[in-house]
């Protein structure tokens, strides 16, 4: 009998300026060699295009937002599991990770494997605690402070801050502010969208570089891939990038992962300043939206994650194809109204054969 693994994953929105990673993870898994992968797509909104990609997913379902509480999320997930027999779950969004981490034990008892950080690891890399984690690992970070009152931006120059500076949400979004007015506006927008705390960071001039990997939970890295952004969207996300090989970035990542004993996928974002020093900006606790590029350069990290989640050894990766580039583009999914109706009314898309019967 063929070795088939059923993988459920989230993050199916694919907004061109700031896509979630789910579609890229799905494409990596669909192109996995050696094992047959059955994909189940999990979304939160009826307009997430991945919900309608029958060419990628065997079935797709809507989930309740994790903010509604772990109980409803778990109940829905187990109902989907009863229908689909999920082997591995890959959460792809920051906001759902606390719930998934809390449920990992009970999901495992139900037969659903995950490969996630512990709650402590997850909390330790949070944006408002990152400076402490980085300092302990001996990695430089930009000066950072929490701000709860926009009056800060009028007086911060008296305390050693200089414009431009970076205004960041604790979960998503960051804006470079060049004036007091821009900083106050960014503060209000980000706080309104994502809540408090708001963080302020000094702006480091240099080249942003990123590393995607899987922490093995023992302090080691599985298949690191480094990428330098070559083109940005309006939200500062990569729409073009090139594979690089930077020993300074790699060494920083090794020290961080070893210090945190990180378990699971992650993206390390940093800046190489003009003098060559590395400054850590963020550790994202999941695959980045550019993760398809890891497969493109010879290191299919989502496929490796499925292996380690099931207790198998990770593959022996070749050296990545340094110099390879990616350029992202957006495309439309065209769907019949009854597919949309099915998602809206039942929270799931019928399997392909059922849809064909319906259409007949």
């Amino acid at each position, binding site marked *: 009998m063929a070795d088939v693994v059923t993988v459920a994953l989230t993050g199916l929105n694919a907004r061109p300026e700031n896509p979630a990673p789910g579609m890229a993870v799905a494409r990596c898994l669909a192109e996995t060699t050696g094992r047959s992968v059955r994909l189940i797509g999990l979304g939160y909104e009826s307009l997430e295009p991945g919900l309608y990609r029958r060419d990628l997913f065997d079935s797709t379902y809507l989930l309740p937002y994790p903010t509604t509480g772990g109980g409803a999320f778990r109940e829905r997930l187990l109902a989907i599991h009863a229908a689909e027999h999920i082997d591995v779950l890959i959460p792809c969004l920051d906001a759902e990770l606390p719930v998934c981490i809390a449920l990992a034990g009970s999901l495992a008892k139900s037969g659903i494997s995950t490969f996630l950080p512990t709650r402590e690891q997850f909390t330790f890399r949070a944006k408002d605690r990152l400076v402490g984690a980085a300092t302990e690992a001996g990695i430089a970070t930009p000066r950072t402070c929490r701000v709860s009152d926009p009056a800060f931006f009028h007086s911060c120059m008296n305390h050693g801050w200089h414009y431009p500076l970076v205004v960041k949400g604790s979960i998503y979004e960051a804006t470079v502010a060049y004036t007091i007015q821009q900083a106050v506006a960014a503060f209000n927008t980000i706080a309104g969208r994502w809540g408090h705390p708001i963080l302020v960071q000094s702006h480091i001039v240099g*080249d942003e*570089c990123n590393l995607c990997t899987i922490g093995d939970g023992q302090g080691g890295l599985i298949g690191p891939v480094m*990428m*330098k952004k*070559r083109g940005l969207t309006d939200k500062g996300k990569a729409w073009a*990038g*090139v*594979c*690089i*090989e*930077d*020993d300074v970035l790699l060494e920083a990542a090794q020290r961080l992962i070893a210090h945190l004993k990180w378990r699971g996928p992650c993206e390390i974002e940093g800046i*190489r300043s*003009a003098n060559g020093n590395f400054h850590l900006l963020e550790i994202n606790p999941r695959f980045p939206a550019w993760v398809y590029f890891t497969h493109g350069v010879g290191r299919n990290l989502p496929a490796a994650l499925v292996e380690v989640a099931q207790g198998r050894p990770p593959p022996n990766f070749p050296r990545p194809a*340094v*110099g390879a580039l990616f350029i992202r583009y957006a495309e439309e999914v065209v769907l019949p109204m009854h597919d949309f109706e099915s998602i809206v009314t039942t929270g799931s898309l019928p399997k392909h054969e059922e849809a064909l019967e319906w259409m007949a």
Partner: protein
Amino acid sequence: MERALDDAYKGDLQLPLDVIKRLAVNDSGFVFDPVSGKSFSTNETGKAILKLACTERDPRRIAGMLVAQFDVELSLCEREVLEFVSVLRRLGH
């Protein structure tokens, strides 16, 4: 350019050798830095300078070698070497 000229008198390219050695240069003059991810195109003279710079640090001696290779005056060649070095610096190499 002024600083480059000063460096020339010091007899050193003032560009780290490891940076020059890591640059990947193809036949058409496309240059890629695998560490910074930056790329640019150069002409035959630039290709020749990069090749020579892997073993020779003195810009004037590089210019001398180019004179032996191409039909060009030494003063013009020195200026081209220094200009090329200054462009590399501006690109952050």
